[in-house]
């Protein structure tokens, strides 16, 4: 009997496919799947945020808003009075309480945050040419609170931080849920548009005229050094402030809101 072990060709038990190709295909598959899952969870969180009682939101930030409580000056009372007037035009839920805080600082900024707190900086107040523009600002921020944008934003922010922590294998949970960052919440473009529309509606309800409302945006454009409206990075992430102005003008035209009266001065 003859025995032999012939040479066996290569590539029967292995493949010639480049390992990097497999790596790219597999990892992009993973990325795709996780992006889809995270987006779905984000949508669910954003949707269900509205069912969180407003009371919880207030409790959540109660320790952090104390720092603003001691500025009960004239400006504060004036802002609060305007805010109360605006609240009546926006049909806020009964338990939703709006508190305006005035901060005596240069920063050209204003923001709506958790628990119905609105923070207005002196820098921005000084830049505003009329009371109408100020009402537009406050109404815009109140609309954010009305539509629960702060809690939605917080929810998605915590979720993203959680995913990041899982991805980077962090075990320190105190880094994940940091409510003290509550004032740097950012809102999506559609949320801003919604708040703009509601804000202009309030201006019309109060003055029966919308003249001067968009001066708010003009003031922001002019203050080059810090052109923020709701958050400091606002303009860098949403460089379409002119679009917002024209969108509001269109809205006013569509609803036949007049724009003739002279705006009132700030008191």
């Amino acid at each position, binding site marked *: *009997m003859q*025995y*032999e*072990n012939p*040479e066996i060709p*290569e590539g029967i*038990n*292995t*493949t010639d*496919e480049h*390992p*990097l190709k*497999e*790596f790219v295909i*597999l*990892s992009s*598959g*993973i990325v795709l799947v996780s992006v889809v899952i995270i987006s779905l969870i984000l949508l669910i969180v954003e949707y269900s945020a509205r069912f969180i009682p407003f009371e919880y939101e207030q409790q959540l930030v109660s320790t952090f808003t104390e720092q603003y409580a001691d500025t009960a000056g004239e400006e504060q009372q004036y802002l609060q009075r305007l805010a109360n007037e605006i609240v009546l035009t926006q049909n806020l839920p009964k338990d939703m309480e709006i508190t305006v805080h005035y901060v005596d600082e240069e920063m050209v900024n204003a923001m709506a945050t958790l628990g119905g707190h609105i923070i207005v900086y002196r820098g921005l107040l000084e830049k505003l040419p009329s009371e109408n523009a100020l009402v537009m600002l406050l109404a815009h921020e109140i609309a954010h609170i009305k539509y629960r944008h702060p809690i939605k934003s917080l929810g998605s922010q915590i979720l993203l931080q959680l995913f990041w922590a899982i*991805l*980077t*294998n962090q075990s320190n949970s105190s880094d994940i849920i940091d409510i003290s960052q509550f004032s740097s919440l950012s809102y999506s473009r559609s949320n801003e548009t919604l708040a703009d529309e509601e804000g202009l509606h309030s201006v019309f309800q109060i003055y029966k005229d919308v003249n001067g409302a968009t001066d708010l945006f003009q003031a922001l454009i002019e203050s080059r050094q810090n052109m923020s409206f709701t958050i400091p990075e606002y303009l860098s992430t949403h460089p379409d402030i002119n679009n917002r102005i024209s969108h509001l003008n269109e809205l006013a035209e569509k609803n036949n809101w007049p724009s003739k009266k002279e705006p009132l001065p700030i008191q």
Partner: protein
Amino acid sequence: MVEIIILLILLLLGYVFGRMAEKRHYRSIIQREKLYRDVILIASKHPPPELIDQQSILMTGSVVVSVDYFKRFIAGLRNLFGGRVSSYETLLDRARREAILRLKEQAFRKGSRMLVNIKLETASISKGRKNTIGSVEILAYATAFYPTQIP
């Protein structure tokens, strides 16, 4: 962030060195397989009748190989999607051929040209430490026949 950078560095190191080592190993395997082609392997239990008057001895050849980080990473991803784990295929292919070569080398030195009843055993040495050690041992053993020395 640091973790991700470390991961990328490990992947890169695993890829570069793993691929270099693999290419070198394959070159050496193919070359030595040619060299020891005369040592015939038979899987049959029964030795050919012409060997009946020869002496026989048990020969073993074993190899322990470890998987590089890059291969393990790809195999980990494969675990999620399923499919051919080609990164482990080359590893085990190399290990099997190396074990057989070591067996043949020993037999050759003993003067044997025929190995009967060749068998391969595989054992993973990651017991209980699943993600830290990714090594396998391949053991090849056979009965080597060699001509009786005339005194």
